[in-house]
């Protein structure tokens, strides 16, 4: 059991360090950061669309999947636009 006690001691000394690092790294989300996040999300969906089209042209994707990914991309873009409109109000 002395091994377990030693391990508990080592873990206890690591906890404050881990918690402090996390709290330091966590910061409040400003409106600018929110806009930047939405811009990244929109560009991610556009990049998904481009990649899917490129692979579809190469014959790497079946039609049933191409339809699904197109729908998902459209829903994703729609959601980002709605969030952008809400945050600009």
């Amino acid at each position, binding site marked *: 059991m002395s*091994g377990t006690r030693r391990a508990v001691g080592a873990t206890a000394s690591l906890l404050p360090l881990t918690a402090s690092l996390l*709290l330091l790294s*966590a910061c409040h989300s400003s409106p600018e950061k929110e806009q930047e*996040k939405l811009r990244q999300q929109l560009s*991610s969906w556009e*990049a998904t669309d481009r990649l899917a089209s490129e*692979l579809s042209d190469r014959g790497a*994707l079946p039609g049933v999947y191409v339809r*699904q990914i197109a729908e*998902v991309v459209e829903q994703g873009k729609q959601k980002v636009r709605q969030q952008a409109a809400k945050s600009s109000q």
Partner: protein
Amino acid sequence: MNKLLEIALGLVTGIGGFLEAGSLATSAQAGAAFGFQLVWAIALGTFCIAFLVEMAGRLAAVSKHTLPDAMRERFGIRFFTVPLIAVVLVSFLVLASEIGGVSLALQLATGVRFQWWAPVVALAVWLLLWAHNFSLVEKGASLLGLVTLVFLVGAHRLHAPLGEIASNLLPGLPRQDPARYWFTAVSILGASVSPYLFYFYSAGAIEDEWDEGYLGVNRMIAGLGMGFGGTVAIAVLVCAAMVFHSRGIQIDRYEQIPLILAQPLGHWGFILFVASLGIACFGAALEIALQIAYLIAQGFGWKWGENIRPGQAARFSLTYTLVILLAGLVILTGIDPLKLTIFSMALTALSLPVTVVPLLIIMNDPEYLGENVNHWIANAAVLVVSVIACVVALVAIPLQLMGGS
């Protein structure tokens, strides 16, 4: 010769059984969002689960006790209900995620929405458990699970930079989006150190009637099997990093993930991705449903066993029937399987100390293990990883829920 066969089968189980909805989704999300930065989280989780699986197997081989059995005996039924509730809850959510994963694979292949597949998948899982024995369930699922090796082929075709990947094996601080980075890291740890893996393994060792002669086999299976399994998870991260991260694509929906294999492997990449997702999640769903039933039956001292007829272990069979039905219903509601998977994994990380500390106490008790008690290195490794994962989860989950950056 028999032992060699056991090792080979154990390795296949380790490789084929490691990847499931949780490890696949968390590794892919990590690669897409942070490139190779979170390779360390998979390595750390694999290191920890290898120790835990080895302990669970050693306990079964030496003491002839499954983990829940030993916990109930050592701590009493009142204390045992705490890890019991924690493991059953997180395992139930993970089971729903796995049923969601199979349903998603069927949606990708057919175009029919995933929630309509949930009852079919739940019925198939239940039928297999009802009609077949443990060996077929465990080994059959793991053998088919070898299809997940395709991610290694994908990473090879993408010319993965091994040096850069290796340089991320040690933990590092995030370069951007710290809340999301730590949340993804704990989700990876939760997916890798899933309690169902070592609880199921201990029940399997009892079903296969292991004794002390199996300690070497157990060590090999735990170390190599989990090690290879972890390598496949790293390959998923690498494929996502090389296909998505470089293009600025984040993973918000399961439907995006097939592209990480279609890019390097073309049409076959898509087909093999769908097969990997479906088979890996189906295998995991079988194991988790069984593990929940094992846990409850062993904990309450009911008759249990996948090798006996359902009628002879009625409460055990009824338990897995009910959890499969309820998990299928969760997916039928149309809940987003990716979000469910990621949060299930983070909650798993949060619950780790509750599930791991009682195991460590038993593993240090000579009454159960005799001279085979834990070395302090094993205690320290598992305890440090579990407690850190729990603390990070405590901070990262609320931050992620609040949309922290």
